[in-house]
């Protein structure tokens, strides 16, 4: 007989450190945040030890918060859409490149991730500012200068810049698994290059695009540094709102409430999206 006790304990031992780490750094803080969100708060005496739902009610009934949530959703969705529109063709071109160009361009795509978020974002604020390079160029050609910095446009531009690798890489991986002859087969059957891409290549990278979109959406919806630096003080997104509640208003329970609502909303949107697209893709790709 084979002794069973060591074989049972091995998976636990292997998974143990990771599980402990996860519990201590993710689950515990989340639980504390959840508990905190139910505490009452008073401006003169601080956090009270009484249970209340008032923060949740305040947030979902106040247009100020709802507008910020709506803006967050809009910016994250737009960023995801733009990343897909730019990233998928980019991944396709990348997959058709030969070394050494492929390595060079892969580095170019990952580039934004290698630069510190503060430096990168300040770079954008210099480019997009009222006397930035973009406006100087516009004036040079006789156009009136436009206000980009401290608008949603600036946030979307900077987010798309840094999120692109998260779209390109999953799509590129999906493309690499593709039999290159499948595209050739479409050509021999009379499809033009464009039709072959649309009818044959694209449907097969849906899953890569799905995982890319989920990453991009999740990260964009919870982005902090980019909206904080390019959105200015007035144009807030969910993450900057939470920051302000904690550090400006010192209303920790309310900050915790917003954080939990954002988390739940994000989770719901991503799960629903995943369900919808994956169900379709799985049915055909297996």
């Amino acid at each position: 007989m084979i002794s069973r006790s060591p074989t049972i304990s091995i998976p636990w031992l292997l998974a143990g450190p990771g599980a402990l780490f996860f519990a201590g750094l993710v689950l515990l803080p989340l639980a504390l945040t959840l508990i905190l969100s139910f505490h009452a708060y008073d401006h003169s005496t601080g956090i009270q030890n009484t249970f209340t739902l008032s923060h949740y009610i305040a947030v979902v009934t106040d247009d100020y918060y709802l507008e910020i949530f709506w803006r967050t959703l809009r910016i994250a969705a737009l960023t995801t859409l733009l990343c897909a529109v730019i990233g998928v063709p980019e991944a396709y071109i990348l997959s058709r490149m030969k070394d050494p160009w492929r390595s060079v361009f892969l580095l170019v795509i990952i580039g934004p991730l290698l630069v510190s978020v503060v430096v990168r974002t300040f770079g954008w604020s210099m480019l997009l500012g009222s006397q930035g390079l973009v406006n100087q160029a516009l004036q040079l050609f006789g156009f009136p200068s436009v206000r980009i910095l401290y608008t949603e446009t600036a946030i979307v531009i900077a987010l798309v810049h840094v999120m692109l690798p998260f779209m390109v890489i999953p799509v590129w991986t999906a493309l690499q698994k593709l039999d290159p002859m499948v595209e050739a087969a479409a050509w021999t059957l009379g499809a033009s290059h464009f039709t072959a891409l649309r009818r044959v290549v694209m449907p097969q990278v849906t899953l890569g695009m799905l995982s890319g979109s989920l990453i991009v959406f999740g990260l964009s919806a919870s982005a902090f540094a980019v909206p904080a630096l390019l959105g200015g003080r007035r144009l807030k997104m969910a993450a900057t709102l939470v920051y302000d509640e904690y550090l400006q208003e010192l209303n920790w329970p309310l900050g915790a409430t917003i954080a939990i609502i954002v988390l739940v909303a994000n989770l719901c949107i991503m799960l629903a999206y995943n369900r919808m697209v994956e169900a379709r893709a799985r049915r055909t790709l297996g």
Partner: protein
Amino acid sequence: MAFLTLERVSKEFGTFTAVRDVDLTIEKGEFVSLLGPSGCGKTTTLQMIAGLLEPTHGRISLDGRDITREKPNRRGLGVVFQSYALFPHMTVAQNVAFGLEMRRVPQAERTERVREALSLVQLSSFADRYPRQLSGGQRQRVAIARALVIAPPVLLLDEPLSNLDAKLREEMQFELRRIQRKVGTTTIMVTHDQAEALSISDRVVVMENGKMTQVDAPYRLYEQPSNAFISSFVGKTNLLSGTWRGNGAQIGNVVLEASAPDIAPGAPITLSIRPEKILLRDAGSGRLDGRVLSRFFLGSQWLFTVETPVGTMTVSIPNQGNEPPTEGSPVSLDWSPANLRIMAGTATAA
């Protein structure tokens, strides 16, 4: 009237010449195989015909029309890829219909032609399955149906049977031939399997290092290979190097009676004799005495290796139901001198 013509077609990749000066004419309705070891340029040739690669030099014409620079989607040839290259996200019927859709065939006619194509490859009941739900042989037949449904002037098959197991491969050989006969489509098949090429083609083109070395009907290719490489690549053979003596071939100290009208006495030659052309006789009664080194039972036949003064010879004899000589026993080899084939030059094994 030649249907498909390749004139001095070459393909270079940088400094490497994959295909060199291929001249080939194919008649309408013919089934031609491109046969050769891997890297001989046969797939490159097929891809140039399909339009997936552009020849560096030369001209390809189809039915009198120059198609050398034409894009693959304008040529309208049917191609079956080695990997089948089915569209995984489409059903069998959608895969087959794709080419018709690209040709804007009306819906009703499209459905009818897909149905016909699927019944031709005996897959009518699988129309709504996805490729991943099919076996290798079924996928292969979908690929054939997809290529044939567009009624292409030429059907190109790239190693169509190499991903199938032995039994299925044999079945599909017959199947391919049956379909080709029925539809009458001019067909070019690339293969590295000589048995496959011999069994289903009208003509076989042997390629070696990017060059065409012999174009012949299967039977003639087998019986009269033009060089030692072909004789050992197409079927099994015994190759012996020696010198031509006018009325026979001298191998070591033995002279074997043969005829070779074009070869000057004293020239180096290679002698080839097929294992099945040799007869086993009692010791002392044949042309060449030897001793059985080993024997293998293959069911329908016995395969012997026999040690002789000219070297080790392979002999195969049909299984007649009685026990043949055992290992170590003396035997004698006999043959008809007409079955000895003499080729100029020294042998290079395949």
